[in-house]
């Protein structure tokens, strides 16, 4: 019942939003809620995977990202509406074609150490240059370099020159000399003590969002890092901080304490003195501990959700807000399994697959109440990329049509399947041109094919329990809608860490994976899935798509660029070359913190600057009111941008 009221309230709020006059009422209601609360100065949260190291250049672990985004500030940061506001940079400017970005840095800031004391090191433009210098050296083993290395002028050549010297391919140049030439070779300059300039290879209107999402562009005190050598960032004592918090306590695989940095430039905005993390390896445990008041946050998986309905906690269950990561199916277009290879290269069969799944049932594994909320038919997420008029990228035609199509259509899938069979098989069910053979997908599996219907499909996913359950649903759905006499869906699982033996040598027909929109531009994913793109592990050949991507990259305006990208993405998804189906979003959560008080970080970071934490968990009603007020305010904020 409470749930119903909450939904009703949200609806009323949503309707009222259209009438701006009521916006003020909403803001007042939201303020009333916030003012009625008492706030804590400590937030107890938890993490589940062990922390490898704090080296923000060589890890992408979610928990490390979270800590680093609180402890090392970037040049800009999003405010609570996701609008970029000054952080370490006071102001910035860019040239006409957005290939040169210049940032003016706050003066007189010092790095602090793990006791919160100021060090002798001052934060200057040089520290940003040195960050790039650090990742540009292959010896430092920076992680996920591709985007940044290809974007910043000269970095690609610098990196590979050093690498060639290291492995003896280039002998006429000496390593030290090349390192000395960094400032000339690479397009990142400290124009003066407090001005840093990035020169880019291509136009990058999305550069600010990249600054938010990529840890590679964060500053480093080079002298300090080099003095420590390999010890840099192995624990909290071997790291310097310049963000709102510093890591005052670190017990490996156990606990982390963030303490407010009293020397922080924006200290007044800090609302929490300490953020305590403890390791709780299991979701069930964190839920139990939340109920016993021993942690301030817990995620609630779909299964646990059902058990909380009808209890005192029902009222505290809040839906998680967004995820830019998309789950999709890869299809292998050049596999050894000739039965599947013959069919997948047929457009009708791809469409049959596309329409064969009831995506809402799949989504219900993660979101039991409103599964439709997490369906996603496109690769890039809705709400991640906007043009300069505030229009969402996924609202560009023809991507909008793909986004809004209902792909749960077994009848249509059956028709496409029959069409495919008519084209590819003779009347006895023999697939033309396919001989009986043994398919060797070892170490994943090996099986025999007979060249007749049903088509053998070898599905491969990790042995994660949830993924296996999903795979079993795939099997049931695809065999149901295409007919078990037409397809034989086999599930194979591999252990997560043997990925390299599965995806690299392409030992699969269908493969479950995810891609994530990393910054506010479709190119982040789309340039990787072209015919010769690094992520094209399905080995498809799509010249039409490639051509559109080329056009997009050469586009004059951002709008034109998005238009071509949208056409390209629609082509890829609409023709079933890859099949995105849901977002990676997982169910619900319960928390003591008030939503919409933290900066709106979209790309996997979490910031506690400004977060308000109460003495009791937030309820659905409160959250609904706050959300309605927030939406109105955000609309205004984005329009004002």
């Amino acid at each position: 019942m409470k749930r119903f009221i909450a939904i009703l309230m949200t609806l009323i709020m949503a309707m009222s939003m259209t009438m701006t006059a009521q916006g003020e009422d909403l803001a007042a209601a939201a303020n009333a809620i916030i003012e009625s609360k008492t706030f804590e100065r400590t937030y107890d949260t938890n993490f589940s995977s062990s922390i490898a190291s704090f080296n923000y250049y060589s890890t992408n672990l979610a928990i490390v990202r979270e800590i680093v985004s609180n402890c090392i500030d970037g040049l800009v940061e999003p405010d609570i509406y996701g609008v970029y506001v000054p952080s370490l940079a006071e102001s910035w400017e860019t040239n006409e074609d957005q290939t040169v970005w210049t940032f003016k840095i706050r003066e007189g800031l010092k790095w602090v150490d793990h006791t919160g004391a100021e060090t002798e090191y001052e934060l200057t433009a040089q520290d940003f240059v040195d960050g790039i210098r650090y990742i540009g050296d292959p010896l430092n083993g920076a992680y996920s370099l591709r985007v940044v290395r290809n974007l910043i002028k000269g970095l690609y050549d610098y990196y590979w020159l050093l690498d060639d010297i290291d492995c003896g391919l280039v002998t006429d140049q000496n390593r030290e000399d090349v390192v000395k030439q960094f400032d000339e070779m690479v397009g990142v300059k400290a124009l003066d003590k407090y001005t840093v300039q990035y020169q880019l290879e291509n136009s990058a209107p999305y550069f600010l969002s990249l600054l938010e999402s990529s840890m590679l562009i964060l500053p480093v005190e080079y002298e300090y890092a080099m003095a420590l050598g390999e010890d840099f960032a192995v624990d909290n004592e071997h790291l310097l901080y310049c963000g709102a918090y510093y890591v005052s306590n670190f017990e490996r695989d156990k606990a982390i304490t963030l303490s407010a940095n009293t020397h922080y430039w924006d200290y007044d905005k800090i609302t929490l003195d300490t953020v305590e993390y403890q390791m709780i390896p299991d979701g069930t445990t964190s839920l139990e501990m939340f109920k016993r008041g021993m942690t301030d946050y817990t995620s609630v998986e779909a299964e646990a959700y059902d058990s909380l309905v009808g209890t005192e906690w029902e009222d505290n269950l809040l839906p998680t807000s967004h995820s830019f990561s998309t789950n999709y199916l890869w299809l292998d277009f050049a596999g050894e399994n000739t039965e599947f290879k013959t069919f997948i290269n047929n457009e009708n069969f791809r469409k049959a697959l596309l329409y064969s799944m009831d995506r809402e049932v799949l989504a219900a594994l993660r979101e039991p109440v409103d599964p439709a909320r997490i369906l996603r038919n496109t690769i890039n997420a809705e709400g991640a990329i906007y043009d300069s008029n505030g229009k969402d990228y996924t609202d560009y035609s023809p991507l909008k049509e793909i986004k809004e199509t209902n792909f749960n259509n077994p009848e249509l899938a059956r028709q496409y399947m029959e069409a495919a069979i008519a084209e590819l098989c003779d009347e006895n069910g023999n697939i033309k041109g396919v001989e009986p053979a043994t398919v060797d997908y070892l170490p994943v599996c090996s099986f025999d094919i007979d060249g007749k219907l049903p088509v053998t499909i070898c599905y491969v996913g990790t042995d994660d329990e949830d993924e296996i359950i999903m795979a079993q649903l795939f099997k049931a759905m695809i065999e149901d809608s295409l007919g078990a006499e037409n397809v034989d869906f086999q599930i194979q699982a591999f252990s997560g860490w043997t990925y390299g033996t599965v995806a690299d040598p392409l030992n699969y027909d269908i493969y479950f994976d995810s891609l994530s929109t990393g910054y506010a531009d479709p190119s982040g994913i789309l340039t990787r899935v072209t015919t010769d793109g690094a992520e094209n592990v399905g080995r498809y050949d799509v010249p039409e798509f490639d051509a559109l991507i080329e056009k997009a990259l050469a586009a004059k305006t951002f709008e034109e660029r998005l238009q071509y990208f949208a056409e390209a993405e629609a082509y890829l998804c609409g023709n079933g070359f890859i099949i995105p189906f849901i977002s990676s979003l997982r169910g619900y959560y319960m928390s003591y913190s008030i939503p919409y008080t933290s900066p709106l970080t979209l790309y996997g970071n979490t910031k506690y600057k400004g977060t308000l934490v109460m003495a009791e968990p937030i309820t659905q009603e409160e959250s609904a009111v706050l959300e309605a007020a927030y939406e109105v305010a955000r609309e205004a904020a984005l329009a004002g941008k």
Partner: protein
Amino acid sequence: MENMQLNPLKFRAKVFDQMASEDTGYSNYSYWRSTFRTFFKNKAVMLLVILIVAIIVMGFLYPAISDIDPNKVSLKRKEWNQRPTWEHWFGTDQLGRDIWTRAWYGVRNSFLLAFCIALSDVGIGMIVGAIWGYNKKLDPIMIEIYNVITNIPSTVYLVLLAYIMNTSYLTLFISMASRGWIVEARFFRNRILSIRDSEYNLASRCLGTPMRRIATKNIIPHIISLIIMEAALCIPYSIGSEVFLGFVGVGLPVEAITLGNIVNQGRASFTLHPYQMLLPTIILCIITVAFYVIGNKFADASDPRNHV
């Protein structure tokens, strides 16, 4: 003490019987018959034997006669995680599969697997152990091999195995059987050594008893109870280690059903749907307890000192 007096009236002279005095040297004692008689005298043991036979029969019969597909996934959400009903006696799991059916398939598969492992561990172990125990020259080499094998963490070669082989019963069998045999071999070697050198065997050998007779009459009866006990313990062991192997990546194919993977469905199922664990756990407990007790009692029964 003082009250205890011999009453002559209680004694009577026995008449000498020529036939009976000739009879003494012989009894119709048969080792195996006595063993089984002693074994089945215990009512609890009888019950456990019946139970275990019933479970095994059910495990092999049910999959053969039932037409319910244990892997039949339901696409309707409301059929997932059902509580026990008339249609599904023990409810359904998170994809709406019938737990009752799955449990019996699990019993069958787990038993076959455990049986193979018991056979290989105890079988190979016994043969190697016997050779090891009887050959003094081999001893230092075998001890070194034993030390090396048991000191290499099994995860190292299991992970390698996971890279080479696909998931199947054969892979699981190979990885489970990879180490057990040497442990068993050492165990049997120690027992055989101590029995071989015990006084009555020395005496027997001095009296010229042939080796074959010593082996069949004096050594094997001692060993046989150990064999049965060790084999009995293989069942719970194999079910337990299956879980670890799955964790390392040499588990079973996704659709294979064993008691191990039903019971270890995960943390969530345990706290949220405890009834899903009920049947498989009970069966598992009965199997473990039964084999443990049966093994122990059989060991007792096979000890000639306990025979009547």
